[in-house]
């Protein structure tokens, strides 16, 4: 049972050494604990449902899907659970990923552990780590993209642009489906496509996201 004082964390990360290192770091703190670990999207879904944690730490790239997708479903199914994106990408990609996922923030994989621990505490206390100004800039860019003003995102179809615009408004997949009359599963597919296409123009992610989109698509 969850106690008020202990922050219960689920850790979703496919790299075993990294997962073990982070788990040790968290467990060393007196006010938080790792209640479950997962290396895949499938494990993450079932273990999050089983443990109902306060915080989920999510790697963007997972072998069977995207942490961004997982985060979006958590926000929809259990909005009280707060998500932090954990990524080895650079800030640019991480920020977009966090905004797309509707996460409370992102943490780059830097070793100085106090940053991670501090981030978990702040998010658990109800704060967002995303600078409102920066978040606004990201959604502004996404709106530009969705209205076709950003030539880098020509690859997006009209429907995908529409979905992206609603993501930028902060809607969940279900809400998007209701708004534009699509099945939730279809919206999820659109989101996956958008992620991989956005990744395409930030190329490092493209290599990774492209792979994964094929497997999860």
């Amino acid at each position, binding site marked *: 049972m969850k106690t008020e004082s202990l922050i219960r964390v689920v850790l979703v990360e496919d790299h075993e050494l*990294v997962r073990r290192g982070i788990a040790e*770091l968290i467990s060393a703190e007196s006010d938080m604990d790792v209640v479950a670990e997962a290396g895949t999207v499938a494990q993450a879904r079932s273990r999050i449902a089983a443990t109902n944690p306060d915080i989920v730490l999510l790697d963007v790239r997972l072998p069977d899907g995207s942490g961004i997708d997982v985060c979006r479903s958590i926000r929809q199914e259990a909005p009280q659970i707060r998500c932090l994106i954990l990524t080895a990408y650079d*800030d640019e990609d991480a920020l977009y990923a966090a905004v797309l996922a509707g996460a409370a923030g992102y943490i780059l994989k830097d*070793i100085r552990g106090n940053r991670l621990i501090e981030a978990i505490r702040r998010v658990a206390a109800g704060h967002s780590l995303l*600078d409102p*100004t920066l978040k606004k*800039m990201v959604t502004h860019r996404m709106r530009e993209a969705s209205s076709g003003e950003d030539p880098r995102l020509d690859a997006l179809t009209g429907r995908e642009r529409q979905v992206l615009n609603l993501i930028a408004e902060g809607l969940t997949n279900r809400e998007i489906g209701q708004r534009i009359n699509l099945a939730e599963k279809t919206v999820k597919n659109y989101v996956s496509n958008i992620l991989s296409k956005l990744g395409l123009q930030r*190329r490092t992610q493209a290599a990774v996201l492209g792979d994964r989109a094929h497997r999860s698509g």
Partner: protein
Amino acid sequence: MEGRNESDSSNDDSSAGRARGEFGRPLDDTVNHVPATLSDRGRLYALLRANQAVTENLDLPMVLQRIVETAVELVDAQYGALGVIDPVHGGLEQFVYQGVSPAVAKKIGHLPEGHGLLGALIDDPRPIRLEHLCEDDRSVGFPPHHPPMDSFLGVPVRIHGEVFGNLYLTNQQSDGRFSLEDEQLVGALAATAGYAIKNAQLFAETQRRQRWSAATAEITATLVSVEEREPIAVIAERVLEVSGAAHVRIVVPTEDPARLSIKVARGIGADVEGTMVPAVGSVSGAVLEGMNPRLIEDEDFSRIHPLLPEGHTPGSVIAVPLVANGQARGVLLAVREISAPRFTPSELEMVADFAGQVTLAMELADARNAQQQIVLYEDRTRIARDLHDHVIQQLFASGLELQSVAGTLTKRSNIERISNVISTLDAAIVQIRTIIFSLSSTAPGSTPSLRHQIIDLVNEFDGGLAQTPTVTFAGPVDLVIAGGLADDVIAVVREALANIAKHANARSASIAIAVEDGAVKIDIEDDGVGISPDGRRSGLANLEERAARRGGRFILDAGMVGTRLRWHIPLTANKNSDEN
């Protein structure tokens, strides 16, 4: 003239006809074995020599000249000429003559154009033989200064049944009139002349084809090997050279559908290069639209957009679309002046073939470049992915491990040592992120991101450093630093690098650009000799001014060793100004 003096026969049978039996033997043999005593045989001998004379040349203008000379000789005429009929417009296109001196020809002025008797022969290609040409109804008289002409013999020259032109002979010198036999002799010569002309035409055509094919091979080689030269300019130059045109241009579409741009121009009036022509009312516009090669000569060139500078009149134009992937990317125009021979349909065909080959070569070269880009891109993507998936993760995991170990230690010096290692690992991770990013390339046609611009700036920097300056980014740099702020940031980095190159005598330098804690921060350090106060105040003042304008500050710390430049500006004051 040997044959002529002895032969005065008015025999109505054709000498040429009776000579047929002799043609089974090689011409030289026949000529050498014909006894010159009999008059028939003598005329035959002369005809054979004449035939040989007109067939021994392959150069067309020379062949025509020889035909006239030989005909004059054969029937002892004072004057002779060959009028070449213009197959498209009628009338005479060329007039090759013998007997009239250049001085007299100059006095007469223009060459005959095919009126009067000359025209009659064009309209009805059958031999005309007259004792006194002035008595004929069809005669229109002579222009001033024209020498007097009396007896007249005109015979058509045919190639494969088509009338090529007419042989005109006047003033039979020995008898004062041309005989039926003369008519038959010239008729026989005209038959050979037809073949000789055809041969010469074919030869000229073959040579032209060879020149075009050589030009095509050369252009293809150029396109494949040379990158620094605009291939389109090489194309225009070669067409000018090979086609014998006075002016060649390549016209391409612009964003404005109503206007076309002259991308390259060569020959006379080459200074039109870079200017615009209207799409409507220009030859190029019509060809771009129709995508078909065109040979234009009937058009009233004065009514369309000028093709040649003032003082020059276009006579015929070849216009060929440059088609790539089913789209007309441009038009190649070759223009000859009115005084030059017109382009022929076969020349049009050759230019069109040439253009086709060349555009194909251009496409291939493009495709090959694209292919190489893709290979490079895939390679870089793979390296980037490996760095991301393996190297960063491993470093990160090892660092976390060290961090846990540090927690179990009690000896302060050990904790510090591990802490230093962790810092080094963190720095390495940040470096690798920059490397991953720089491995990715900007999509063609789009503006490079600020990070790419900074990386390019640093990579191009040659300041005598032992190694390329390190670059690190923190925070969403591309997102935040845009527009005018991006210009400032690039200016700061450029100025700092220039200072390091000129004055610092440094071995290494680092550039850190961060968007964090609500600020944009540029920190640039080097390990050089520091700053001398003279010389470059203006550059530094400029940086100071740029910082002040954005409510930020510019600090320069110059010690005995090394210089640290800090250019920090608050984000809140600037976030709105960059929306524009």
